[in-house]
């Protein structure tokens, strides 16, 4: 008995669910890997082209099995060529100790299973998790630079843009259509008239002919004059359209308060936030500069290492950082060439009278040129509970809140632990999505 069945038309991806489950499982590993790597890596390294490999731990399937070395074993091999009983073969020197521990004796290499994601895959997963891919498309397309691009022809324009070929083509067509006499016709008639007129004696037939010719010549000359060689109607201009040109360069300002009240915990949180913004920008721009500006009661531009790890004491005057940012912008990043992003992290402390100046600086000078300015205030757990969903808080926060209502490209958020950062980031951009 037999039964043949053609299953080829059955749905394929039967394993799709399992595959997704595997990725779901692996995704946790990626998150772990990212979390761990945040500490050691530079901001630019996180998405910087190298793949993040997932440790096999967690996707390992442990089984109780014999170690690959140790004890007394007897194995049968095929293909003996020269051995006789009692022969001794030296073991390779690394045969003992740790070396054999990782190898799996099943030959499947199960214990070694590592799943490396490319940068793209990594970022996709990363952003998928943040539910951001659509935002990447909509939000970051806002651009300021334009570049003229040929866009067909138009009937008006400046003389420099006259398209001769098109114009002549139109002119010729019109001339043919309106039967404009060509120059040869006129000259031929004229010559004939001249010839007859120079004759001393004309007979009657010639006389009639001359009159006919004169009438015709007049007619032709009239038409020749009436129908211009080039009419304004013929003229075509090259048309150019201003096509928005995404700037391929972006500069990202990281502003951070490094006064005594910002401890390692606060800095770590800030770093995560900066990294997220950087990853986000990286999807969009070919080149991203990062400027680190730290401030206490005075601000300075520093390198990343100093930014995150050196300690500084002093008061807190937030506006100094903004002034420094303005200076750097003026010196090195002309607005017409750069997309400007800024992320500011602080614990909210500020010198009493300074907030007003900060707001002024932002509203007058910085926000108009920034694509986006994000401010996160890092609180401790207790404060976070207390201040959730409220406008209350220190003067800096209250001032910034007012500013956020007025400017679409300015956002403020409060965070207190790493877990807050992802949702915060989502919210920051989700809000823009609505307005986009």
């Amino acid at each position, binding site marked *: 008995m037999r039964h043949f069945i*053609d299953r080829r038309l059955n749905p394929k991806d039967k394993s799709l669910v399992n595959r997704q489950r595997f990725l779901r499982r692996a995704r946790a590993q990626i998150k772990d890997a990212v979390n761990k790597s945040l500490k050691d890596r530079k901001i630019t390294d996180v998405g910087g082209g190298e793949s993040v490999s997932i440790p096999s731990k967690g996707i390992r399937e442990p089984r109780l099995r014999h170690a690959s070395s140790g004890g007394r074993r007897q194995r049968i091999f095929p293909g003996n060529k020269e051995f006789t009983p009692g022969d001794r073969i030296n073991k390779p020197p690394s045969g003992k100790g740790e070396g054999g521990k990782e190898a799996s004796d099943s030959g499947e290499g199960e214990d070694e299973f590592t799943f490396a994601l490319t940068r793209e895959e990594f970022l996709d997963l990363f952003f998928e998790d943040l539910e951001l891919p659509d935002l990447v498309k909509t939000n970051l397309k806002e651009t300021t630079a334009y570049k003229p691009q040929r866009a067909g022809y138009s009937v008006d324009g400046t003389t420099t843009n006259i398209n001769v070929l098109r114009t002549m083509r139109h002119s010729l067509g019109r001339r043919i259509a309106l039967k404009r006499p060509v120059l040869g016709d006129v000259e031929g008639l004229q010559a004939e008239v001249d010839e007859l007129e120079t004759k001393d004696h004309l007979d009657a037939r010639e006389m009639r002919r001359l009159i006919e010719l004169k009438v015709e010549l007049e007619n032709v000359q009239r038409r020749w004059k009436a129908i211009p060689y080039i009419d304004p109607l013929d003229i075509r201009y090259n048309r150019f359209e201003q096509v928005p040109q995404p700037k391929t360069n972006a500069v990202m300002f990281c502003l951070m308060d490094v006064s005594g009240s910002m401890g390692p915990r606060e800095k770590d949180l800030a770093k995560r936030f900066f990294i997220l913004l950087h990853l986000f920008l990286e999807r969009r721009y070919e080149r991203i500069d990062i400027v680190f500006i730290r401030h206490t009661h005075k601000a300075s531009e520093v390198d990343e290492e100093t930014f995150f790890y050196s300690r500084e004491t002093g008061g807190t005057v937030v506006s100094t950082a903004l002034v420094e940012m303005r200076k750097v912008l003026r010196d090195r990043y002309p607005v017409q060439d750069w997309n400007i992003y800024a992320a500011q992290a602080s614990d909210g402390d500020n010198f009493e009278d300074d907030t007003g100046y900060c707001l002024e600086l932002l509203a007058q000078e910085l926000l108009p040129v920034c694509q986006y300015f994000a401010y996160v205030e890092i609180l401790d757990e207790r404060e976070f509970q207390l201040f959730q969903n409220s406008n209350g808080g220190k003067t800096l926060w209250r001032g910034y809140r007012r500013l956020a209502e007025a400017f679409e490209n300015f956002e403020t958020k409060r965070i207190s632990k790493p877990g807050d950062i992802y949702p915060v980031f989502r919210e920051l951009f989700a809000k823009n999505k609505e307005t986009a």
Partner: protein
Amino acid sequence: MAAASKRKAATPKTTKPKAPKTKAPKPTSARGLLFDGSEWTFQKLETTYAAIQEIAEEDLGLEVYPNQIEIISSEQMLDAYCAIGMPLMYQHWSFGKRFVHEETMYRKGFQGLAYEIVINSNPCISYYMEENTMAMQTLVLAHAAFGHNHFFKNNYLFQQWTDAEAILDYLEFAKGYIAKCEERHGLDAVEEVLDAAHALMDQGVFRYRRQNFVTERQRRERAEARQAYEEQTYNDLWRTLPKPADSEDPSETERLLAERKKQLNLPEENLLYFIEKNSPALEPWQREMLRIVRNLAQYFYPQKQTKVMNEGCATFVHHYIVNALYDRGQITEGALMEVLHSHSNVVFQPDFDDPRFSGINPYALGFAMMQDIVRICTEPSDEDRDWFPEIAGCDDWRSVLRDAWANYRDESFIRQYLSPRLIREFKLFLLNDDSRDKYYEVGAIHDERGYREVRDKLAVSYDISQNEPDIQVVDVDLKGDRELVLKHNVRDGIPLDERNRDEVLAQIRRLWGYDVRLSGVDADSEKTLYESRSVSQRAKKED
């Protein structure tokens, strides 16, 4: 130990008289070609199947389940691969992991896909790839639909342990049940149990007996009978026997321990079974899931023990049938050459020093041994007469092979049938590896003195009860701290892989709910070599 493995090679058992039904029909060359060219059609498959069936049943005397042959695409083959080759399977990330892995290997061209997958079920389902040429489909039909199918249906291990009629229904139930659990208890909760159960799959089988199911009623009847007997034989005099005064305390704990072990039926080597029945921490649905995994493990257990025989049988059958088809003029020389080309790829055995070497190829060994049996039956040498007096020259190799396929597993098959001639052909040798020495020692080779030892050691290497770790539940005090005590009988000083060991212990702890202790005891000296405890989940999370 299974009865079959105890048989000694030199004293062959008496073969049962077989119905002399098989007699090779005369080759007739006037049958006409079954197909020409490489394209296959369902029509060609039908006629070829019929021709193969004729040879398989009338000539070789094979007996098979009805065949259900399904043509699938390569993507579907990948799918099928990854669910342990089963047509339906519950969902779990590890199958997805396999898929990602296999797909990468396949797409990058590191490995091809199987030509076919056969499932031990009734009807016997086999999957064939649409990419196969007609010649390959012929090979695969003979290989899977008759070779494997016959083996599944007739081998004693499969008959004893698996229920071919019910497996598909059971898988459907399992899939549905687990999906329902996911709905009710969440993906993570289900995954946690499955992960742990999978870790114990190798320790989730009954090796030597079908489990003795005692119904509640039988249990009650037995208890009543025992009670009745005690009542009958009661004698008040026994009460007056003096007790030994000093032995009371130490023996008390001993007695309790013995009592406990007896109640729990300890020692128990089927860890999954023990946990399923006795874990204080599991919900009923979790127990049912353990049962599902355990049943699957048990279903696959015979396959683990018969790789050489199963593949050997299928390879032998396709080789014989395709040649017979050619002899009868039913396939072209081209088709035969194509089949033989892939056949010889399949049975290639690289030497130990060849970079391609990765152990002994079960196809190669199985096929060679079965060809060898035919040779011993038909053209025995004196050596064969010495070693195999029972079958040498008997000429009826068909019955001998059918008998072997039915009554042996890899270990006993090799012990019984591996001939000196084959040992020489494979140039087999034994390597002793003592981790204390700086060298390996060649123990025995393919010569007069070595045949028996080589054969013996090769057979042992296919005995799963010998080469998988022997781990048993030995004690648990359910009324006390509930610590589960496992014992690893360390044979020949071979330790467990520590990383795996610790991870599995953590998994067991998850299922058991209380601490788990594993002690490694040397099988000979009874000396405790190591003790390992499960790290509690809380402590683990902290680091």
